[in-house]
């Protein structure tokens, strides 16, 4: 653990001088990694392979070490092919274990990647004396190590990933959404799976130097998950995820400089902030919009309930004060006041000294509500077979769906009276 802390105490500012050549190299490489990870991440998220993404990043260690053993240096080409091979072997082994044992896939993934990671560490310790293999760099990333050849490799991988995803957009979409039908149509689902695994390993090994093994999976799943919150179509999701990945990388670099911290974690924190923002602001799923919608519906229902109460009080010829309304509805005084204010604005009620009176418009609307309530009661008894004692509460809720009242009226053959024998008003 002291090793980790020593790593974190390192003065990062000495290399990340903005706009210096090294900074440009590092930033460009990270942005490319961010884009490729984001785009591939969409498929990882949608195919529920997040754990595989994590597994791939860990399992490339033995591949990298073996490549290092063979080539004797950290040349990018050897490492790349070592990692790619390790990634595909991982994916194959996972399939094998889950197919030929009763082990389920998640456990199979756990067994395979920990085993390969352990093998990688054992291989490192058996490296000949004097060779330097930086495990810390592998685990936590080391932006200092990003060289021109890394940049060149990423400048090839990222456009290739995008090109493949664009070209195979339709088969990948179908194979991810409905593998059975894809296979029935003659699309090779297995080949596409290994293609994705291969692209993912290639991208992950390139991302290792920027974020390290432990955090690189965040660059894969977090931007894609953020994009998933914001759209209902696959193509916009891919574009957004790539964009979020790029933004996370660029802003992570800035954050790292400002806070004098390592870049990888800074990128992950930016990506997580984007995800949190998407979670809150998503138009369909977002916490904020959901709360807002619920609040609006509550206000709407409250004002309709108050309107009906005013109508009933007038019917019963009782003085319609605010207090009388509060007694009739299950709402607080504040809610009733808010509802009355809304209704006044909508010109449904008027205040005459301390008494509330319906305007002609308000009366019309109230009759509509009462009509809906009584029609729903009739419907519940006749069509749904619900007992008389239970229908009122249910109709109290359903009456707010008053746009369906006329359909019920037609379906029931224009009933005159509700199940309690009260006349159903017409408007």
């Amino acid at each position, binding site marked *: 653990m002291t090793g980790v802390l020593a790593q974190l105490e390192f003065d990062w500012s000495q290399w990340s001088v903005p706009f210096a050549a090294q900074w440009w190299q590092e930033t460009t490489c990270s942005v490319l990694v961010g884009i490729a990870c984001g785009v591939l991440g969409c498929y990882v998220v*949608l195919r529920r392979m997040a754990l595989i993404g994590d597994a791939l990043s860990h399992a490339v260690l033995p591949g990298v070490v073996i490549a290092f053993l063979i080539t004797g240096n950290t040349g990018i080409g050897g490492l790349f092919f070592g990692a790619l091979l390790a990634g595909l072997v991982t994916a194959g082994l996972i399939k094998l274990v889950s197919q030929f044992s009763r082990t389920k896939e998640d456990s199979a993934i756990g067994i395979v990647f920990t085993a390969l990671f352990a093998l990688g560490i054992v291989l490192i310790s058996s490296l000949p004396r004097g060779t330097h293999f930086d495990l810390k760099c592998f685990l936590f990333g080391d932006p200092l190590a990003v060289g021109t050849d890394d940049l060149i490799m990423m400048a090839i991988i990222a456009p290739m990933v995008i090109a493949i995803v664009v070209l195979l957009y339709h088969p990948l979409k179908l194979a991810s959404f409905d593998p059975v039908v894809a296979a029935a149509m*003659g699309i090779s689902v297995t080949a596409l799976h290994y293609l994705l695994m291969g692209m993912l390993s290639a991208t992950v090994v390139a991302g290792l130097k920027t974020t390290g093994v432990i955090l690189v999976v965040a660059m894969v799943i977090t931007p894609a998950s953020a994009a998933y919150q914001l759209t209902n179509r696959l193509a916009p999701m891919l574009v957004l995820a790539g964009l979020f990945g790029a933004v996370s990388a660029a802003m992570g670099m800035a954050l790292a400089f400002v806070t004098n911290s390592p870049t990888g974690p800074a990128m992950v924190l930016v990506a997580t902030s984007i995800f949190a923002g998407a979670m809150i602001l998503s138009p369909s799923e977002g916490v904020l919009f959901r709360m807002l919608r619920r609040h609006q519906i509550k206000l709407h229902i409250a004002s309709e309930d108050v309107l009906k109460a005013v109508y009933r009080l007038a019917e019963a010829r009782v003085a319609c004060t605010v207090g009388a309304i509060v007694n009739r509805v299950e709402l607080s005084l504040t809610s009733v006041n808010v509802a009355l204010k809304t209704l006044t604005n909508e010109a449904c009620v008027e205040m005459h000294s301390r008494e509330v009176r319906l305007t002609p418009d308000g009366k019309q609307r109230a009759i509509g509500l009462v009509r809906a309530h009584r029609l729903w009661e009739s419907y519940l008894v006749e069509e749904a077979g619900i007992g008389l004692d239970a229908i009122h509460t249910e109709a109290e809720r359903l009456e707010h769906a008053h746009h369906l009242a006329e359909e019920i009226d037609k379906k029931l053959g224009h009933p005159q009276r509700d199940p309690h024998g009260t006349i159903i008003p017409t408007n």
Partner: protein
Amino acid sequence: MKTTIIDPQTVVESKDQLDYRAELPPDESGNMAAVSVRGLTVSYGERPVLRSVSFDVNSGQIVGVVGPNGAGKSTLLRAILGLIPLDAGSITLSGKPISQCRNRVAYVPQTEAVDWDFPVTVQDVVLMGRYGRLGLFGRPKHADRSAAEEALELVGMTEYAHRHIRQLSGGQQQRVFLARALCQDADILLLDEPFAGVDAATEQTIFNLITKLAAQGKTLIVVNHDLSVLDRFDIILLLNQQVVAFGPTNQAVNDRNLHRTYGGRLTLLDRADSALRDNRGDS
């Protein structure tokens, strides 16, 4: 609508012989059966799932496949789709193996098997029916899009084209996947439990739709878990790893066959009996 052209005399019950064949006459035009399954045997590992299953379905017929959990119903569909290796036997579609005519068969998956959160709209899903003919790098053309529109129109879902699939009711979801199958222009449709978890009105809609399709000469094989829909099919295949009975519904479905299909699971049988007794006199 009854398109049954099977002679009631040919109702067959398996006699547990391995080389059993369902001898069925060819359809009126003298063509080969749309789907012909011969001695089909499939196993997962050591465990056999289907044992010498044979039957013929002619075009325009709707076959209801009924059997308990683990009876091999879904396996049968997968075998017809050509997705699993066969231990023995053969499946031909109008005399050709599936590998030569993949586009002729469409599959409507179980609602539970679909990822309803996947970012696709109704239109996207229906258009997927055309992917089989696009080739690996192809893009949907104008003709594909209009085929998708037509299919949506046919199932009455045009106005929902731009909705996300999660925003649909159970019946609407079924109709979207039916539209995808139609868009595929297949003449053999395999439906996996289309009536699971839908209300009576939706059930009716789906039945109307598949009856219409059968009248157009499509062949439909419909897998069911629930026995309550039994009497709506022209032809029933009672399946429990092997064919228990195959033939016109009123002939194939009787207490003895149901008992054999469900292996004396009395609770299920009771449910079946009551469902058959008091069902749908009113609808």
